[in-house]
């Protein structure tokens, strides 16, 4: 489980809806040499107490990320809506790894479906969008769950004002 944060933030209803919606979700971690690693994540969920975030990542694309989190727990996750590039970035220091349960896997299914639908509305066929994540699980269907407590939240919508802390 996640370690308790010194500065827990509470995620608003509005932000929860956004984070659990059809956004493109990417997680950034780093190794001991400060080399960054990007991993696409699926099925984000905000906990009941509004203080924890969970995400799933395919094992096949996240081996380095898992090593990084074992080593230092630093994580940054962006949620970006393909229709208008509205983007939020959440950062935490104590990310941990767990095995997803059926609720997590259901969230992954819902997220992929919503993501495909929103991209369909932009003219991308569902088949193409599905190809997007199929390569991620081509060699292994196993998903890993990542949990963290966001300590900082930024509005990262592109433009000169990007990066404003909320």
């Amino acid at each position: 489980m996640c370690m308790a944060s010194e500065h827990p933030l509470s995620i608003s209803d509005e932000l929860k809806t956004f984070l659990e919606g059809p956004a493109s979700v990417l997680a950034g971690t780093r190794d001991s040499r400060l080399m960054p690693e990007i991993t696409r994540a699926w099925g984000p969920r905000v906990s009941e107490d509004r203080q924890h975030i969970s995400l799933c990542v395919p094992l096949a694309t996240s081996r380095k990320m898992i090593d990084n989190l074992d080593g230092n727990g630093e994580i940054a996750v962006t949620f970006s809506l393909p229709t208008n590039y509205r983007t939020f970035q959440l950062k935490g220091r104590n990310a941990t790894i767990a095995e997803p349960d059926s609720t997590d896997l259901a969230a992954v299914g819902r997220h992929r479906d919503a993501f495909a639908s929103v991209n369909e509305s932009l003219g991308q066929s569902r088949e193409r969008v599905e190809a997007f994540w199929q390569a991620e699980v081509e060699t292994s269907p196993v998903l890993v769950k990542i949990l963290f407590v966001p300590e900082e939240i930024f509005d990262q919508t592109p433009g000169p004002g990007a990066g404003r802390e909320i």
Partner: protein
Amino acid sequence: MSTASPLAVSLESIASCFEGIIPASICTCSADGRPNLTNLSIVCCVDSRHVGLSYQFFNKTRKNIAQNPFVQVVVVSPANMRQYRLDLRYERTETEGSLFEAMKTRLDAVASQTGMSHVFKLRGVDIFEVQDCRPINAEIGGDALPGTDFLPKIEEFTARLEACSELESVIDVSLDALSALFGYEHSFLMVPDENGNRLFTLGSHGFGESGIGSEAWMGEGILGIAAERREVVRTTNFSRDVLYSNTIRSTVQRRGEDSLLEREIALPGLPEIQSQLVVPLVNQHRLLGILCLQCATVGRFLSDDERVGRIAARQMAASMALLERAESAEPEEIPRRPYTVQPTAVSTVRHYTADDSIFIDDAYLIKGIAGRIFWKLVQSYVQGGRVDFTNKEIRLDASLQLPDFKDNLEARLILLRRRLQDHCDFVSLIQVGRGQFRLDVQHQLKLEERS
């Protein structure tokens, strides 16, 4: 520079990832070990071991790069949606030179089109060494896409162009061949006016409305910026909302010249432009026009298409320049045929001297030099019954005050002929031989001159 081993996936094999069709992401890390992840507007491939990233805003990404040169970028192939991780090391920032100018033109063109010029200012291009490039699922291969062999098509294109002996055929044959050989179905060609302030459309292919005679301001919008800077502008994922004709119209409105809208012809354009390639036609440092290719598909024009466009444009410009020189050759004399038929229908041709605009039965036809020439022709017809004219006499006619520009007369006559074809079914301008044409009029014409 490091003596790194070959990349798992070569940058050349994933060239379409650098077209900006699907947004890329960048992760940096501060000196105290906090990762930061954000979207990237442009990642371009500089050479086999370097990429360039646009630097527009001073933000967390920039701060982190200053502290720690290692970054990772994920790009997505628009062809098969595969994702690739690029491990990069920051090398330097370029604030001038060809790479900077090319990226600036691309950003400025889109910014100008969307009225965001003050926001999208390019500060520099950050150059990174690529230390590794691999599929996001490292266990699967990079599967490069098969390239198209353009050489035989380019040879065929130049062969077709070589057979053209007039400006009009250069335009038509080129646009036809671009469609038939390369599948560039929607294209148009614009040439500069005598002052170099505007461009006007002289030929188009594959649009519902030909847009012949439509204009664009030099230096404004994608067309105007490509022309002014003589640089190729390629947009691969153009905002759905932006239509060129609308921009021209709103520019007119912004300038408080609403009354001129009546005399504006809409630019040729697809209702949903998703990809556009604008290539300047330049010969010996002189701008002869621009070639614009459009497509409703995202990512239609890739770097190879840009090369094809450049080669085609150079060939077209060279042909146009050659014909300009040949055009001054003497035409053979033809017998002048007096007109005999007295048509019954009557139409009014009105000439406004302020801008030389011509209206036939209250419908706008043309303005400027082409309007002046047309007015001269119909005056000669009504007053003296003349129908046959030579390019040479028009060129030498002092009353027309033609600019000292050889290419312009031919271009204006093509423009006039095509506008008549599109908008008037009882007056036409027929080419009857080299440097000669005939005015064919089926109505009685009443001439009116206004200021």
